[in-house]
């Protein structure tokens, strides 16, 4: 098959590509007898990257003297080709300069001030390339900075590394109107081109070399025919003039009838194609040793006096070319410069744009010559564009989808197979700038892809983190469960506990009786204080939110640190810190959602978690302390919010923290600080209570102190009463069990609650400090009332019972006592509210105001911190 194809090609068979257009050629304008060399100018601007591939590293610095042909960048990557000094002189700047790109976006450019001497480096020709290894020739091509001179600027040496090449196609088609650079090169330098092709053929060892030239360049065809007459393997093929026959893919189709498969290079078909200009550059590099520092550029257009082709050094500003050709714009206000041809070229932003390796033409047209595009009209679906498309796309449908930003549909219609040749826009009767729509769509799709990739990476990171956090949380929960069980066991083994309970029951009974007498209505005052509570709550929420924002920022930092650091203890501390914050945050949110009691307990609990975890790590005590302080602050926020809403919770937290802190012998000092904080908190809350409900804290405190003391003063009467209560409590407990099964969500708070109580009790009995006792007692009381505040108090109270029953049937009495106590507390609370009603209105208000003010101040402080 391949053999017959070879025969076909040899016999002169040509294929056609679909579509194509015949724009007015206007090539004769710039055809002259010879190609002059442009005189030197003062400044050259050499962009560092003039090829497709990677940036090459700079090897010179400002102030360096360079010689003509000296490499300015390294070629230390296969896809990097160096750029060279176009003349001798001094590097005066390495910085941004307007680029020779449609966008004109400045790019890194070396500015050379010419010294006028044009001194060259010592050249090292390799004219005996046949005797050298292919690697060294390929390296030489790379060192010479040779890229495709046809337009795309693909590094030539990369193409030459291809294996199993059957056809080497030499592209002398030059299908774009106006441009005659290749034509002039072929006419005047045919032998040199053939020498260059020989180098390529030596490297690739193709079966056949086809030099393709459009039939509108008979002189060029004749010149190459002459130069190739001794070469058996070389065929000069005249192809029909049709734009864009010079496109690599189209040329391959014309010469071989094959289409380059999507996503593959032509080498996949055993084909390599090179531009004639590239062949000349290869000749120069191998035969004379001169790197690619100049090329032929067509300067044409009716605004020029002398349209022509010149040898221009790479880096020459366009202005210099224009001046040489005699630029006299007919209309100073409507000047337009095109770099490249009229079909695919782009407008220049500035005449300071330098000539690059890919620059083949500068057009300075008059208004009539290349008139500005008329305003776009409606697409009439004539599909002339489809008929013109060399890639067999459906340009008008691409246009519909691109302009409607339906990029997925545009991609389905193979938007990315568009070579932007401009044939569709050329034929469009409605003057729609189709290519512009495609470019925009492509750019936006690429942008979206980049963003999507980023998002996916972020998602992966996030998931990995969430998983890790979840594991850590589970581990922590397991640890705490164990600790709680240990405590329960300790409680059970303490015989004094039962007595205490009995005593407490008795007291409760007494209180109850007292309360019933004092029970008066106080709706008015309650309503008022409720409103104020609502305000407080709102403020607290805002505070919590601010805290949230801050913590999330801190959290991400923490996460980074954690990744970076190899210090395990630090990392752990950081994790704990972050968790504590997050959980505290959750707590705050949860409060906001009016599941106050549960959330707060969780928050408090987790704060404690964070503490104990960090404490366990002796290496990071200092850090842990800071973290604890932060956690405290958050807990405090939460506590305050709660306190303002339901008073009791904060104390629980405080007390709990205290209790937690105490057993830790290693950080006694810190514990003391914690205690102090907790106390202050407790005090604050106590005050708040006092203001609101007249010495609630004191009463409760006193009562609980008695609780603690009553271990030694066993009252027989109370024992009897306790028995009665026990009897009463039994059916209640049963009921509670039922309710509990119906209220699963309540379960979560149970163990914690109990834990709180246990801790408080422990604290009360063990601490010698009476104040601490009192606090613990308060905490206990608060925890109870918190329970009762939480929607179904009965349920909660009996939950405790249930819990106790679960643990040990011996402790039933204790549990019942607890229920009774809880009831008593509730009634007491009601009573307190009643008492609050009796407080004078003014006094009450002013107190509230003070509190509100304090809260505002606090909120402000928090926000500042947050910011």
């Amino acid at each position, binding site marked *: 098959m391949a053999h017959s194809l070879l025969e076909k090609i040899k016999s002169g068979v040509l294929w056609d590509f679909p579509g194509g257009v015949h724009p007015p050629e206007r090539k004769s304008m710039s055809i002259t007898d010879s190609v002059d060399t442009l005189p030197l100018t003062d400044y050259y601007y050499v962009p560092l990257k003039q090829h497709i591939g990677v940036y090459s590293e700079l090897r010179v610095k400002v102030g360096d003297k360079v010689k003509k042909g000296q490499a300015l960048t390294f070629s230390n990557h296969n896809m990097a080709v160096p750029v060279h000094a176009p003349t001798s002189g001094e590097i005066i700047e390495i910085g941004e300069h307007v680029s020779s790109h449609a966008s004109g976006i400045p790019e890194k450019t070396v500015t050379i001030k010419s010294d006028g001497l044009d001194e060259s480096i010592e050249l090292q020709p390799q004219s005996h390339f046949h005797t050298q290894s292919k690697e060294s020739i390929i390296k030489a091509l790379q060192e010479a900075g040779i890229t495709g001179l046809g337009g795309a600027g693909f590094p030539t040496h990369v193409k030459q590394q291809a294996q199993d090449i059957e056809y080497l196609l030499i592209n002398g088609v030059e299908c774009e109107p106006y441009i005659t650079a290749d034509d002039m090169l072929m006419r005047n330098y045919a032998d040199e081109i053939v020498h260059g092709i020989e180098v390529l053929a030596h490297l690739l060892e193709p079966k056949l070399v086809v030099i393709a030239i459009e039939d509108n360049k008979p002189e060029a065809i004749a010149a190459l025919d002459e130069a190739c007459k001794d070469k058996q393997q070389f065929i000069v093929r005249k192809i029909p003039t049709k734009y864009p026959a010079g496109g690599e*893919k189209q040329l391959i189709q014309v010469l071989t009838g094959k289409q380059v498969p999507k996503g593959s290079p032509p080498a996949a078909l055993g084909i390599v194609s090179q531009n004639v200009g590239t062949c000349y550059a290869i000749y120069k590099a191998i035969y004379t040793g001169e790197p690619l520092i100049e090329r032929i550029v067509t300067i044409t257009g009716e605004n020029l006096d002398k349209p022509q082709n010149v040898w221009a050094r790479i880096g020459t500003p366009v202005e210099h070319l224009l001046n040489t050709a005699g630029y006299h714009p007919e209309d100073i206000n*409507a000047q337009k410069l095109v770099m490249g041809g*009229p079909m695919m070229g782009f407008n220049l932003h500035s005449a300071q744009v330098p000539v690059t390796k890919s620059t083949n033409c500068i057009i300075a047209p008059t208004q009539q010559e290349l008139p500005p595009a008329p305003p776009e009209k409606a697409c009439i*679906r004539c599909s002339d564009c489809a*008929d013109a498309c060399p890639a067999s796309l*459906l340009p008008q449908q691409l246009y519909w989808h691109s302009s409607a930003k339906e990029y997925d549909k545009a991609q389905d219609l193979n938007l990315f197979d568009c070579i932007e040749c401009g044939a569709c*826009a050329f034929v469009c009767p409605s003057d729609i700038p189709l290519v512009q729509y495609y470019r925009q769509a492509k750019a936006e799709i690429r942008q979206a892809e980049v963003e999507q990739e980023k998002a996916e990476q972020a998602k992966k990171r996030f998931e990995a983190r969430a998983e890790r956090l979840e594991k850590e949380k589970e581990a922590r929960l397991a640890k705490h469960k164990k600790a709680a069980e240990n405590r329960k066991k300790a409680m059970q083994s303490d015989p004094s506990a039962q007595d205490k309970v009995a005593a407490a029951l008795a007291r409760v009974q007494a209180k109850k009786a007292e309360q019933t007498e004092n029970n008066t209505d106080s709706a008015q005052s309650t309503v008022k204080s409720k409103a104020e509570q609502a305000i407080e709550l709102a403020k607290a929420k805002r505070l919590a939110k601010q805290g949230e924002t801050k913590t999330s920022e801190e959290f991400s930092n923490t996460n980074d640190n954690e990744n970076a650091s190899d210090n395990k203890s630090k990392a752990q501390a950081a994790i704990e810190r972050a968790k504590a914050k997050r959980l505290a945050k959750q707590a705050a949110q949860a409060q906001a959602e009016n599941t106050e009691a549960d959330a707060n307990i969780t928050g408090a609990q987790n704060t404690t978690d964070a503490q104990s975890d960090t404490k366990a790590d002796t290496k990071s005590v200092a850090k842990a302390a800071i973290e604890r302080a932060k956690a405290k602050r958050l807990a405090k926020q939460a506590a305050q919010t709660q306190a303002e809403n339901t008073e009791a919770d904060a104390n629980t937290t405080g007390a709990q923290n205290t209790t937690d802190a105490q057993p830790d012998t290693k950080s006694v000092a810190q514990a003391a600080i914690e205690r102090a904080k907790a106390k202050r908190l407790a005090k604050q809350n106590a005050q708040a209570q006092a203001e609101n409900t007249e010495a609630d804290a004191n009463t409760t405190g006193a009562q609980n102190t008695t609780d603690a003391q009553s271990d030694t003063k066993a009252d027989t009467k109370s024992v009897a009463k306790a028995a009665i209560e026990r009897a009463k409590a039994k059916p209640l407990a049963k009921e509670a069990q039922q309710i509990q099964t119906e209220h699963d969500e309540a379960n979560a708070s149970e163990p914690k609650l109990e834990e709180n109580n246990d801790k408080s009790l422990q604290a009360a009995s063990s601490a010698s400090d009476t104040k601490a006792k009192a606090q613990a007692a308060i905490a206990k009381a608060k925890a109870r009332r918190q329970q009762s505040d939480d929607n179904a108090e009965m349920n909660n109270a009996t939950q405790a019972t249930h819990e106790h029953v679960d643990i040990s049937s011996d402790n039933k009495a204790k549990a019942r006592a607890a229920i009774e106590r809880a009831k008593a507390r509730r009634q007491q609370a009601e009573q307190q509210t009643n008492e609050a009603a009796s407080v004078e209105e003014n006094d009450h208000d002013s107190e509230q105001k003070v509190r509100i003010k304090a809260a505002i101040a606090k909120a402000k402080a928090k926000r500042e911190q947050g910011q």
Partner: protein
Amino acid sequence: MSFKLASSPHTRKNNKTGNVMLQVGIACIPGIATQVYYFGMGVLIQILLCCLVAVLTEAICLKLRNRPIKHYLDDNSAVLSALLLAICLPPLAPWWVATIGTIFAIALVKHAFGGLGQNIFNPAMAGYVVLLISFPLSMTSWLPAASLIQYDLSITDTLYTIFTGYTTQGYSVSQLIADIDGFTMATPLDAVKTGITAGYTSDEILAGNLFDNGSGIGWMQVNIAYLLGGLYLLKTKFIKWQIPVSFIASLTFFCLLAQGVSTDTVAPVWIHLTSGATMLAAFFILTDPVSASTTNKGRLVYGALVGFFVFAIRTWGGYPDAVAFAVLLANMCVPLIDYYTQPRVYGHTEVNK
């Protein structure tokens, strides 16, 4: 120095939409001239009326849509739609028929869908169908060819009839189109349809004086004139060959197929091809780029589909001619046709689906 910036390409073919539309209109001239010759000046009056209304409607619609009026009027699309609609109207149809049809075609069929290029249906045909359904009497009262008519109609008479319903002598349209016996003279396709329904064979029907051994006096000549205009458009590449060829081939194919099954109850092929709006449809109506298929393969399918619909409706449907309905039906299939007839893109091994 500051430079003007524009996107490539910087050069354009000088073939503008307005010119395309104009050329299509010019290619109608032989057909219109023949129509005037056989059916009187009424045709020209309808064309003028429709074009005037179309331009006004277009201008108002553009104004309402905040589009530059002159810029879009320049594309000549409204005038062309109106022209094609006017050609299809009976020459003596009342003025308000033409007006309503044109307004509907421009305002509703075109602009309501987003203006030129966005309309799903062919405006002229949609306008025609609306008129046919709404005013069946006026729309089916075709004047017989001038040689068959009993009265001489001057241009004044025509104007009077169009704008008042009566000639200067007071004849109404139904009187004008009646034959000597007082029966309404039908169009050839009408005659074929009623004849076959009444049990005549196609040969018997064609023996009538209406046909004069052809496919109906006037009608055949008009069709040939439009064919000539169409060939001009093909030659100048203002239209593509796929649709006319596949349409005519498809109509012929189905006609021959049916004749093979039942010769006597199907009108012969030449009647189908040279009667009614066949040639006008093939070259001027189906080739409306906006509402036709946009791929080359799709155009073949589209033309064939219309050919089938035309034959089916003419043979079994309730209307004697069927181009308008067939076109609208095929218009609805266009997105589907386009989707399944995408060309294989360069370098792809198979067609994208």
